[in-house]
């Protein structure tokens, strides 16, 4: 077991190095840089900039360095926890990212909880009532859920919330709480705002997982040990929830690892619509303005999350299913 984790961790580090390299390469691909935007702004403000000033800026941002040097500067500093300075705002990349990432992770965790709480019972119901009208309805709703773009649902919910309940949603906090220190009232305020985002984020994943749960449970229900459990005289409810669901849930556990990072980045569009201060919109704007250190860092962090998520998924699976031996 420890052996397995050690092997996976080494593998992860190697992958992260390669990912950071490839990711950085992709991100610095577009011609031009944030410097051009910067210079534009300077020119508008102070009319003219001297050649020396430009050179100083270039020096500072390392714009004219060869690719390997740029990469090395960035990665060596990143390892020490210094992700460099964002071109756009002159703020430390680290500071900007951590705050938003925190929101993203908590938002996605809520969404994940919601997904599980909803998709497992519905999947179970759907599988145990196969070919009945409710099953068909659930199936249809699932497909509609998959087909509706998240941002649209966000908009519709936004309208419903504003028009029907006269309730200002969108954003994460009411204006009076934005800079307030954490308190119970602030948490309540956040919950009031965040439910739409959680709902929208969870929708697609819920539809998908319900489908998976249904299919798996149908498989498991054909297994001999389910018949054994019935032959013992157990109530059908116990047969399903204790003996069948426990086995059918494994792919969901495995999906857990990939789902969290998927949700974190999946909210990009939704966050745009709801103006949430999460990592997605930030990544997008960094890409647009070719803020390569910021974008690169986010990409690598998200990859790390994905890899960690996969590892957690595998470990959970080993815990849920005694057959999975990790050696």
């Amino acid at each position: 077991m420890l052996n397995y984790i050690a092997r996976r961790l080494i593998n992860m580090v190697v992958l992260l190095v390669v990912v950071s390299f490839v990711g950085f390469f992709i991100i610095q691909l577009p011609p031009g840089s944030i410097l051009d935007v910067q210079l534009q702004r300077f020119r508008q403000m102070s009319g003219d900039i001297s050649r020396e000033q430009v050179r100083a800026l270039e020096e500072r941002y390392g714009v004219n360095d060869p690719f390997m040097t740029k990469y090395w500067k960035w990665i060596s500093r990143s390892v020490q926890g210094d992700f460099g300075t964002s071109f756009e705002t002159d703020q430390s990349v680290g500071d900007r990212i951590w705050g938003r990432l925190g929101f993203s992770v908590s938002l996605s965790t809520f969404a994940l909880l919601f997904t599980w709480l909803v998709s497992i019972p519905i999947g179970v119901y759907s599988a145990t009532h196969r070919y009945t009208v409710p099953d068909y309805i659930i199936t249809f709703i699932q497909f509609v859920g998959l087909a509706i773009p998240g941002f649209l649902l966000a908009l519709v919910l936004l309208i419903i919330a504003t028009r029907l309940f006269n309730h200002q949603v969108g954003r994460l906090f009411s204006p009076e709480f934005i800079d307030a220190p954490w308190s119970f009232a602030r948490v309540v305020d956040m919950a009031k705002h965040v439910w739409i985002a959680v709902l929208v984020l969870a929708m697609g994943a819920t539809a998908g997982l319900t489908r998976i749960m249904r299919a798996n449970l149908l498989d498991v229900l054909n297994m001999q040990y389910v018949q054994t459990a019935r032959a013992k005289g157990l109530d059908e409810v116990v047969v399903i929830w204790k003996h069948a669901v426990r086995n059918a849930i494994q792919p969901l556990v495995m999906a857990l690892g990939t789902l969290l990072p998927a949700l974190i980045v999946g909210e990009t569009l939704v966050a745009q619509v709801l103006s949430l201060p999460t990592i997605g919109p930030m990544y997008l704007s960094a890409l647009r303005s070719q803020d390569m250190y910021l974008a690169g860092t986010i990409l690598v962090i998200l990859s790390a999350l994905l890899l960690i998520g996969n590892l957690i998924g595998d470990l959970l699976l080993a815990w849920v299913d005694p057959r999975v031996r990790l050696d």
Partner: protein
Amino acid sequence: MTVHPSAASIASTDDVICVEDLKVSFYTDLGIVRALNGVSFNIPRGKVLGVVGESGCGKSITGLSIMQLVHGAGRTEGGRILFREFADRDPVDILTFGKNSSEMRAIRGNNISMIFQEPMSSLNPCYSVGNQIEEAILLHQTDDKLEAARRAIEILTKVGMPNPDRIAKSYPHELSGGMRQRAMIAMALSCNPTLLIADEPTTALDVTTEANILDLMRGLQSEIGTSIMFITHNMGVVAQMCDEVAVMYLGRVVERATVDDIFYDPKHPYTIALLQSIPRLGRSKGRLASIEGTVPDPYSRVEGCAFHLRCPAKIDGVCDVTVPEEIVVDAAKGHTVRCHLYS
């Protein structure tokens, strides 16, 4: 078709189970499969009844019907299954209980239990062996968890597990096929059932393991006095294990007799052909007598005697028209046969 209760199926107080004219069909996408077309037989108290037949003859469905475990597409369309727990009690018709009714659940695992063919897949991989045995004990016998754990270890010892405490804590995948089948037997016998239905319990095992499991079942059977319905396709196993035999072909019992009569005085052409076609150990080489043709496909309906398509003694105009009735050949020994040759 009229139903004649045969001599053997008259519900005697000595029978634990008396199945009468049981009919089960499966409604599938490809058509209706009439799995059981009026199955009648009885299982005497404290005896081992072998149910033999080739695949598709309905032997497993019969076992599952007694447990009311036939799934989804299968429907019971007639007949009775009378179960008499004790000789001095009135029989109950199992088919009048709902599949998931409390009455049925009180019988399952407690009065009638079942073991299956695949020891590899009949235990839940997520729970320890001990846990799965205790589950049945807690359900039917006691509420005391410690007592249940104690009894589970006791029964594991009884089925010849070398290290019962350790086995109780291990998971199914850590055990070999033979060990798992022992664990299944332990689970099935944990509540001292009146009847044990064993659906090909040794088919998936190697010969040496099979021999051990058969010895174990025979030993426990004479010790506890449980009646066994032993479903198998292996005539050798029948000869070694059973007291009485019911031979099935296409959803009907075609011959019912004591094990000696089945092997030494078989009546139905199918039984005879079956015995002739098996290579027997220690018999001189030579051509095996084989039954021509194959079992008709399950979606079709055969007129008359189901075996007439392959029967060397078929009577034209009779066998392909009328379904033979159950004929008593020897009332004393309860030997019956469904064949026009004996009418």
